[in-house]
């Protein structure tokens, strides 16, 4: 029944469960963080599971990028704190460089978003064996690839030309990262821009929007697999 569908749709979009205390705090603040509160309001006021929503429109998109950069920065910080076994200097250098780029991106978005920034995240890298080259590089590949996909996927939805320019300046660096990591995994092969990442028929990056599952795990779900504090992007595509 159509009415029921609309109700469920609104239910899902508006009433993400969040902790009551956080909701009341968020709507008391002026500015964009209220968007987090609005989309996370639970109808009956009961405490929820603690999911934080990135918000709507450009703020939502910037916050989503901020989430990605935070996860990447946290991952590479760990990967650099103790390198995987037998890491040659050249590979340490790659990880070192990328770590700094992601930190710069993260810190930039934090400044740009100001009071609109999503709340503090807690990370979960328990799935990664930081002593294993294979584990670290494969995780890095996942993170870089979802970064490229998400920036490209969301690009056409960005309303502000300024924010579009910023996304453009960052996405190519993430693509450089991805190519470098993929090259470490399979040197001097086609993998740096493999058919899994780039459609051979068109030469186009296989981008996605954050909630698109397309036969696998959505970017949001992948992010949440590295987060203790879960996020949602309920109003983003």
């Amino acid at each position, binding site marked *: 029944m159509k009415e029921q569908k609309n109700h469920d749709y*609104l239910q899902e979009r*508006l009433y993400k469960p969040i902790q009551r205390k956080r909701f009341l705090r968020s*709507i*008391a603040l002026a500015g*964009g963080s*209220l968007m987090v*509160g*609005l989309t996370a*309001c639970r*109808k009956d006021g009961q405490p929820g599971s603690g999911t934080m929503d990135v918000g*709507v*429109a*450009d703020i939502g998109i910037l916050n989503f990028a901020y989430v990605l950069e935070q996860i990447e920065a946290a991952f590479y910080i760990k990967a650099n704190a103790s390198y995987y076994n037998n890491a040659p200097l050249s590979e340490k250098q790659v990880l070192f*460089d990328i770590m*700094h*780029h992601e*930190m*710069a*991106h993260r*810190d*930039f978005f*934090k*400044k*740009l978003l100001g009071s609109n920034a999503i709340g503090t995240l807690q990370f979960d890298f328990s799935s990664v064996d930081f002593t294993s080259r294979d584990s670290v590089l494969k995780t890095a590949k996942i993170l870089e690839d979802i970064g490229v996909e998400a*920036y*490209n996927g969301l*690009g*056409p939805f960005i*309303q*502000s*030309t300024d924010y*579009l*320019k910023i996304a*453009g*300046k*960052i*996405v*190519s*660096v993430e*693509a*450089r*990262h*991805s*190519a*470098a990591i993929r*090259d470490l995994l399979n040197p*001097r*092969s*086609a993998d*740096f*821009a*493999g058919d899994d*990442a*780039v459609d*051979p028929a*068109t*030469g*186009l*990056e296989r*981008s996605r929007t954050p909630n698109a599952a397309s036969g696998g795990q959505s970017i949001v779900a992948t992010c949440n697999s590295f987060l203790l504090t879960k996020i949602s992007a309920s109003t983003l595509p």
Partner: protein
Amino acid sequence: MKALTIFEETFEKEVIKKNFSRREALTKGLGLGLKTALAAIPFGVLDVLENKAQATPSNPDIIKILNYALTLEYFEDTFYKQGLAASGLIAAGDVNVFMQISKHETAHVALLQTTITSLGGTPVPAPTFDFTAGGMFPDVFTSYQRFMGLSAAFEDLGVRAYKGQAPNLAGAKDVLAAALNIHSVEARHASEVRRLRSSKGWINFAEADGLPGFIYDGEENVVQLGIDVTTVTTVNIGAVTQAFDEPLSMPPVLQIVGPFIKS
């Protein structure tokens, strides 16, 4: 809660689809918390919810930009075809890299031609190229180091060129999506070829690393949207310049590729 029920009913209609007036919201009998929250929504956000996007670029403007991109793709496509055909030029272990790049450039040419035609435009024909640039690089297809160097330079230039045009396509979302998805692929190419040359995959300050320097002018920039990134991070300035790739507008790009175009 009555307030939330009202909000639920009107959310889609009023916030998403209609002009959203703060006065309307405040007189809707909403609860105090939501009144406060809604009053703080910046108007820019409301414009977004109404889809007040950037003005759509004129069709001739889009076609002009796409033909510019097509010219650059012809450039790369021809360059790699000639390089792969030059016997003994590319190191055997690297052939798969250049074959993958070449495959993409060929696909880009076809995609752009199709897109331009579907928009009612006429794709420009492929120019005749001189990759020695009038004798400046006589060994372009006999020296692998030279070939790799020019490849890296062209890929980095391609990244900057697409990046420079993205804002001009902001009002044509499908075309923008295609441009962005070519742009990141060129960045993959650039990273890989740079690394084959034993350089970093990313651009440090405006270092040309033996390549034509003017291609990298502006890459030393650290100010993004008015924020000096070096002041908001502990990351060193070199890494900050690496972290952001800079656009290049059409005139300097055409000036750089000019010497390589015979006709």
